[in-house]
């Protein structure tokens, strides 16, 4: 049985941990290192770092943070935001990241997925899709932190990413993101038969029950931002609930 993955996401506008709503506005929450240390002690499975201003500067600014964290936190982490090329991936891995998440760069040049997978392996390359629902009922990805429209269909794009070898796909509902009202499962459920790689859901988790919903619907894991940063729930609480419903999670050490 696959183990459901509990992943924390830290949005960073160096040097601060920040949080927005619907990918907009950045409220400063504090030192990302303090939050990361706390989640590690609580037993988080993985940590995903996102540089929220990378696309403005055309590069990731998190290499030194990742470097520092990799000397004290011995669980996997991913680096996203401003990863545009194979060279950027080399830098991310050299600084201590285990994988990268790519979004905008993949939409602009989908062959980057194939190239990266060929050099680094699928396990290093996650594709992040930040999407919104249109009035037609279809979903479409946005990029550059939600500022640009891709004019793509999210189902077709995700299927293409899976075919190109993405190690996993992270679905962020921009409509739910930061609202704490629960995840959007609709797009993910549509994608399950069209993809072969793990699917992670992100955007809107406000309590442990929201996490359970993703688990019982067959997703590989969730990425949690607000709910942990604002202490609306805890890793221990989530683990207890999932275990009580026979969902396999990594036990507390």
């Amino acid at each position, binding site marked *: *049985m*696959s*183990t*459901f*993955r509990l992943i924390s996401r830290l949005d960073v506008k160096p040097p601060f941990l920040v949080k927005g709503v619907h990918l907009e506005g950045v409220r400063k929450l504090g030192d990302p290192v303090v939050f990361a240390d706390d989640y590690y002690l609580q*037993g988080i*499975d993985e940590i995903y770092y996102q540089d929220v201003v990378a696309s403005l500067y055309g590069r990731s600014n998190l290499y030194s943070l990742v*470097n520092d964290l*990799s*000397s*004290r936190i*011995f*669980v*996997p982490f991913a680096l996203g935001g401003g990863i545009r090329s194979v060279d950027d991936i080399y830098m991310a*891995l*050299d*600084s*201590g*990241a*285990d*994988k990268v998440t790519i979004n905008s760069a993949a939409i602009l040049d989908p062959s980057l997925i194939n190239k990266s997978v*060929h*050099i*680094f*392996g*699928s*396990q*290093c390359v996650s594709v992040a899709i930040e999407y919104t629902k249109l009035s037609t009922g279809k979903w479409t990805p946005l990029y550059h932190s939600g500022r640009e429209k891709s004019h793509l269909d999210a189902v077709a794009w995700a299927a293409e990413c899976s075919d190109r070898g993405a*190690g*996993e796909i992270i679905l962020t509902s921009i409509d739910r993101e930061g609202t704490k009202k629960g995840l959007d499962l609709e797009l993910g459920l549509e994608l399950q038969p069209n993809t*072969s*790689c*793990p*699917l992670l859901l992100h955007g809107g988790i406000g309590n442990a029950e929201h996490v359970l919903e993703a688990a019982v619907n067959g997703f*590989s*894991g969730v990425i949690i931002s607000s709910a942990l940063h604002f202490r609306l729930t805890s890793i221990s609480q989530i683990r207890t609930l999932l275990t009580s419903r026979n969902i396999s999670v*990594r*036990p507390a*050490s």
Partner: protein
Amino acid sequence: MIGLINYGCGNLRSLSNALTRLNHPFMLVCSPEETKLCDLLILPGVGSFQHGMKNLVDKGLHDSILEFVSSNKPLIGICLGCQLFMDSSSEFGLCKGLGLIPGSVVRLPSSSERVPNTGWKQVVSSDCSTLSPLSKIVDQSWMYFVHSYYCQPLVPSNLVAHCHHGTNQVTAVIQSGNIVGFQFHPEKSGDRGLDLLNQTINYLLDFTH
């Protein structure tokens, strides 16, 4: 002195940090000459089998690793490093490995669980491995896996421990004498992973002296 092989395919920083945390002196090994300065080598690995083998050959490290182990010095492989120990892999077409442990590397079936096998899994001793001290150390521990291919050792006693991926049993730890391979990442598996790495290093250094 532990040598961490730098062949352009590993997450060296995580392993360096782990060895620092464990107070094991280490150096990055980039050339055949440097392998001779080490008592134990670690072959890390992230990426494709073909790319890994090509880099080992291009850097002249392929032969020096084989010489190192044939002089009974210990070698630990992690993730891709572990897979490179086998005779061959079918990733991106058939490719020869180091041939240190008989068997091949094949793709995980995606019928009952998604690929790559990503996340924490419980590692259990394999039946034939009860004689290996390593099997007791690793049994029932939770480790972090992220891989699309896995080792299929031909000799049953080389299979020390496994995990499950869907309904399939997947190799987690292999050993042949002074050579140990981990499919998972002990350097990314929290305190238990660091402890396993430490015990394995100490066990192998004692074993081969």
